């Protein structure tokens, strides 16, 4: 196999996993990862979806390869590995948190930095970030697959936030009964979209 074929194959694997994580295995619609945060965000105009998405993607891309290596190093732990995994993965997220924080503090302007720092803890300590690491670890993904899945997962999460935020204009209509407004109608809306994705994939994901 030539070098160019290998590069193309690697790129293909990367994008395949990214697309799968973004659509067919969307963090929100297929696994409900980070859905509590999402329903809060769509009601909260102070959180900028773009900044939150950028923070989430940056933290995810820094911490997921660290978690992949850490998972390999934890192999001798045997039956204790699943118990210690969350602690190690949270530490990896913590490293991602400080790297992004350092970048924000040194590069961004004061106003942008303030908004980004406010969104950073929410974007870091999130079920979507830890969930992606746990899926990659338990399904024995390679580093390339893990990176593709991490990128697609964060892009998929941001896509879900944008879809849910956009729908709010319709969901706040007067035709919606008072007791359905807010959380209930948002959950039903996400459920209908999840049903459409289930129809597209045709099977339930292993949890």
């Amino acid at each position, binding site marked *: 196999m030539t070098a160019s074929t290998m590069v193309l194959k690697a790129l293909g694997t990367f994008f395949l996993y990214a697309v799968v994580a973004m659509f067919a295995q969307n963090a929100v619609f297929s696994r*409900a990862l980070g859905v509590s945060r999402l*329903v809060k965000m769509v009601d909260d105009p102070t959180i900028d979806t773009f900044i939150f998405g950028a923070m989430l993607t940056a933290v995810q891309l820094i911490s997921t390869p660290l978690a992949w290596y850490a998972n390999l190093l934890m192999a001798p732990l045997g039956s204790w590995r699943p118990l210690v995994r969350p602690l190690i993965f949270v530490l990896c997220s913590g490293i991602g948190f400080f790297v992004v924080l350092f970048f924000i503090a040194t590069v961004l302007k004061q106003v942008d930095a303030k908004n980004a720092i406010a969104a950073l*803890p929410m974007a870091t*300590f999130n079920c979507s970030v830890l969930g992606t690491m746990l899926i990659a670890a338990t399904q024995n993904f390679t580093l390339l697959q893990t990176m593709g899945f991490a990128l697609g997962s964060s892009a998929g999460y941001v896509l879900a936030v944008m879809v849910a935020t956009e729908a709010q204009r319709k969901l706040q209509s007067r035709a919606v009964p008072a007791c*359905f407004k807010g*959380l209930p109608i948002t959950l*039903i809306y996400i459920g209908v979209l*999840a049903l459409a994705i*289930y129809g597209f994939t045709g099977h339930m994901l292993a949890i």
Partner: protein
Amino acid sequence: MNERKKARVRYCANNMERLTQRDRIFLNNPVMIQGLGLAPIVIAATTMKNATILAVAVILLLTPTRVIAALLTRGTYFRFRGLTYSLVAATLYIGVGWVCIALFGQDIQAVGLYLPLLVVEPIIIKRHERNQKEHVRTAFKKGIFTTIGFLLVLFFVAGARELMAFGTLYGKTVLTVIAVPVAQYASGGFIILGLLAALWRFATNAFKKNINIKMKKIEAEGQQK
């Protein structure tokens, strides 16, 4: 209406806002009103057995995390509290996971990654987003009531979904006809939880309205006298 009931209505009417903020079981339920802890309920709470596994983990994780984190975050910078809460929960999870394996064995695989995911689930660590530091006693009290509020919804939703999707309750056949097979899927979980949340909100609004009507009656009686 006797005097004791009148006093209770007066207390509720005059303190409704405070009661709504403080109550973690009905008026301000962490799941149905605040929208916390949705992921494990939507995906993993499909049977009562799964709900029991999640319940044991939440009982052992929520209040201790909140109390220890309240102690540790006294001297830390506000933006680093998320890390402290998550690290405390993840450290405690080593013991919690061990207890769950000892109690349920291989059955814990039915809840999959939703057991370790509890360490960053907003119902456990959401408090870090608030600027004010939390007193240890308050953390303990709120931790207990949040746990009760979460468990109430967890078992209610799991029971309803098991009945609708499999026609069983705790594995025992109750219905011969499976009414809503989609209840076992993520989409079914979202829709059922959304409908129950609407019903819950209807009940809380009806309760508040009822208190206001009774209060007006009491005031009218007082003016007549």
